[in-house]
């Protein structure tokens, strides 16, 4: 099975090379016939024979892209097959799996390691490429072929990397009796879905970038290009949002530190593409609706792609140290950096070379929806810049022999105020008209949101007293944004409101909900650290937590000491079972937190070590409304999904007409 997978991988790589060659030849031979810069729709093949050949070359990229996608899927299926069968003659299985593991973790273990995750990436890319080849009907054949060529070029780098530097199907002789197992921290259902979700997001951005390549090569940067690219950007953004939200919740309950975002380099590596995708999502709307911001949108597609490459590779290069960093040998790290430089450098060079051929689009007034979206883009870019600097500064400093680390205080101080300004702009933006609007009229439309923010701020101050500047501003702005985000629905027939308007409303509301959760967590969390004997009790916030005792528990491939805690508040009582888990393969201990979710927050409990005197360490948090953070994330993604469905449906109708 491993050999079949390897063969499929080689075939897919060869097909990617063919796809690239076809696209280059087709676009070039056509270019000789008709000058570059002529819009595709009006272009006529002049030299009959050259034109026919070019047509054939361009048309051939479609089926090649589809077969390449199929081959990549076959290779991935083969890898999953050897993991499920626990084939201990494959090195990757030996190093990352164990025959006694539950099937879900053997299955997900196929991508819970370096080689497998790279294969998963390129598989999703192959599927997306086949999807573009099958579905895209709006672009001219040249732009589409150039797009598929761009995708092939990206995929080729991955195939080369897999085949020469990290072959997932390598055999070991002789085969050992069993594998080394998987890091227990990664033995979680979250692992099965978190990486594929993020990768789907990264790949979506690379598809958006391929469209940008196609449009740059043929000079057709306009509304048609924006409409073709938009579903992919939206899809990528939905996946990234889900991936980040799920990753945040995973870190929250699995690490047992009570935090939901650590500004860990790997978290930042997933946040940066999201920021770029968010900016792109908004600017592509300007391009599709008003034919403005042409060069800027293409630039954002390049930045989004670069950030997703950074997200994919920097994590794997061993440059950053974090919980996700897998051990990587130095030669592979160099390969990764070279590939990264090639991709990003190539993307920027293409942009610099071809952007002159893109003529300026429509102009607009500052006080207009377009102007608001520019403000959104600029603020997102500032946040992206801050996160980028904060993530890479330690690496640069280390190159100069200075060891330092940059933690949450830096990011909160530098990015927090900009993010709040962005939220304020977000409240106003959707209430401004396209093309031109009056500042006074916009302020009048903002009366209710401003009142809501002031009311929430005053109420907060009266009830809770001073809570810190950022949480205070966050809660007040969240209230304002919540009101402002539903304002575009006011006075409309809700049934006839387009789905993508609903999408915007729901996403913006999601931001408000999430922000409220973050601010509540920062302002009102109560924490208790104690060591108590069985029968004793501790207090945290409004809860009284009684420690009933310790009992042993056995799971699939672990054993645990489990505490029984009875938490009471007024007349409600909940029982929680935090654990200290011991794994045999490899030998590791993890603490499993126990969380009780109430409508108004979560009680979070962690069991620590035992003392010699029979006392056990307990760490307890009461986190009011913390669940809003992830509920908001879900709403944001739901909004993206609604918008995507709305756009696709509208696009279908447009084609049918």
């Amino acid at each position, binding site marked *: 099975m491993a050999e079949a997978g390897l063969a499929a991988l080689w075939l897919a790589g060869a097909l990617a090379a063919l796809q690239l060659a076809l696209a280059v030849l087709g676009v070039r031979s056509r270019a000789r016939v008709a000058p570059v810069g002529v819009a595709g729709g009006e272009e006529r093949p002049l030299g009959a024979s050259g034109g026919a050949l070019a047509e054939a070359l361009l048309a051939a990229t479609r089926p090649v892209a589809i077969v390449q996608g199929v081959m990549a899927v076959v290779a991935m299926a083969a890898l999953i097959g050897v993991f499920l069968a626990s084939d201990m003659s494959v090195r990757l299985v030996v*190093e*990352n799996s164990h025959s006694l593991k539950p099937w879900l973790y053997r299955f997900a273990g196929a991508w819970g390691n370096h080689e497998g995750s790279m294969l998963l990436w390129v598989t999703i890319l192959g599927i997306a490429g086949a999807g573009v080849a099958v579905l895209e009907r709006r672009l001219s054949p040249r732009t589409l072929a150039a797009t598929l060529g761009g995708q092939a070029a990206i995929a080729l780098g991955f195939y080369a990397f897999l085949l020469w530097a990290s072959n997932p199907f390598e055999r070991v002789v002789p085969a050992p009796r069993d594998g080394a197992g*998987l*890091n227990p*921290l990664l033995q979680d259902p979250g692992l099965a879905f978190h990486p594929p979700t993020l990768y789907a997001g990264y790949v979506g951005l690379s598809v958006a970038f391929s469209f940008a390549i196609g449009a740059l090569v043929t000079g057709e940067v306009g509304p048609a290009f924006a409409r073709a690219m938009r579903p992919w950007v939206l899809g990528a953004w939905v996946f990234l949002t889900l991936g980040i939200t799920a990753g945040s919740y995973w870190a929250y309950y699995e*690490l047992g530190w009570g935090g939901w975002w*650590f500004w*860990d380099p790997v978290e930042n590596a997933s946040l940066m593409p999201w920021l770029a995708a968010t900016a792109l999502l908004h600017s592509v709307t300007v391009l599709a609706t008003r034919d403005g*911001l042409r060069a800027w949108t293409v630039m954002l597609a390049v930045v989004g792609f670069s950030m997703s490459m950074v997200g994919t590779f920097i994590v794997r290069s061993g440059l950053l*140290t*974090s*919980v996700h*960093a*897998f*051990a990587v040998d130095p030669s592979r790290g160099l390969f990764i950096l070279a590939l990264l430089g090639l991709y990003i450098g190539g993307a920027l060079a293409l942009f610099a070379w071809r952007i002159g051929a893109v003529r*300026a689009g*429509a*102009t*607009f007034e500052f006080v207009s929806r377009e102007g608001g979206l*520019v403000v959104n883009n*600029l*603020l997102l*870019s*500032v*946040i992206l*810049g*801050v996160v980028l*600097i*904060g993530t890479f*500064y330690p690496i640069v400093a*280390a190159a100069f022999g*200075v*060891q*330092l*680390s*940059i*933690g949450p*205080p*830096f990011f909160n*101080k*530098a990015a927090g105020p*900009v993010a709040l300004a962005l939220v304020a702009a977000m409240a106003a933006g959707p209430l401004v008209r396209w093309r031109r609007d009056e500042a006074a009229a916009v302020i009048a439309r903002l009366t209710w949101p401003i009142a809501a923010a002031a009311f929430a701020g005053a109420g907060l101050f009266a009830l809770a007293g001073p809570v810190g500047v950022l949480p205070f501003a966050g809660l007040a702005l969240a209230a304002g944004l919540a009101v402002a985000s539903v304002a575009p629905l006011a006075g409309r027939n809700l049934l006839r409101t387009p789905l993508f308007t609903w999408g915007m409303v729901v996403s913006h509301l999601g931001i408000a909900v999430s922000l409220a959760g973050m601010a509540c967590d920062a302002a009102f969390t109560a924490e208790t*650290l*104690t*060591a*108590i004997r069985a029968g004793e009790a501790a207090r945290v916030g409004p809860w009284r937590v009684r420690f009933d005792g310790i009992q042993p528990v056995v799971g699939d491939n672990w054993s645990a000491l489990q505490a029984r805690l009875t938490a009471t508040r007024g007349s409600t009582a909940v029982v929680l079972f935090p654990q200290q888990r011991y794994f045999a393969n*490899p030998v*590791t*201990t*993890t*603490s499993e937190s126990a969380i009780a979710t109430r409508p108004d927050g979560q009680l979070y409990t*962690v069991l*620590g*070590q035992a*003392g*010699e*005197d029979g*006392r056990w*360490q307990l*760490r307890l948090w009461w986190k009011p409304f913390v669940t809003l953070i992830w509920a908001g994330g879900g709403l944001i993604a739901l909004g993206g999904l609604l918008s995507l469905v709305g756009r696709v449906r509208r696009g279908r109708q447009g084609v049918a007409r």
Partner: protein
Amino acid sequence: MTAKTQRLVLVGLALLAVVAAALLALSALKDQAAFFYAPSDVRRDGLPLGRAVRLGGMVEAGSVRRAGDGVTVRFVVTDGRATTPVTFAGIVPDLFREKSGVVAEGEFVRDGSFRATNLLAKHDENYMPPPLVKTQAGAMHETKTLDR
């Protein structure tokens, strides 16, 4: 406004955004970057008081003591040349153990000891207990790979 001037204005704004991001980041970096120390760095350079830093090294064998309250831990971090006593109130990470690498986040106290607010021990897919590192250079190299 013509298309060209609008483009110029947008480019100007974009540059302004980049500069703003850099300035913002640099001003925050000045007082928020946590520098990394090994115990012998402190002996050589003096105590960096009043700012968040990271202290890295190995947990000295036999040095871990738990205080009477059951939650405060005292231990000694060594890099083979010098040692620093550390106090930490909380649940130590799962991989924290004697003769193993640790990175403590927190700040130095006037008496030369370190008050940690957070402990990081090595988590890695291919986890092996790191060998006791003798030299400072070795300790620095080792601690580079230690993180949460």
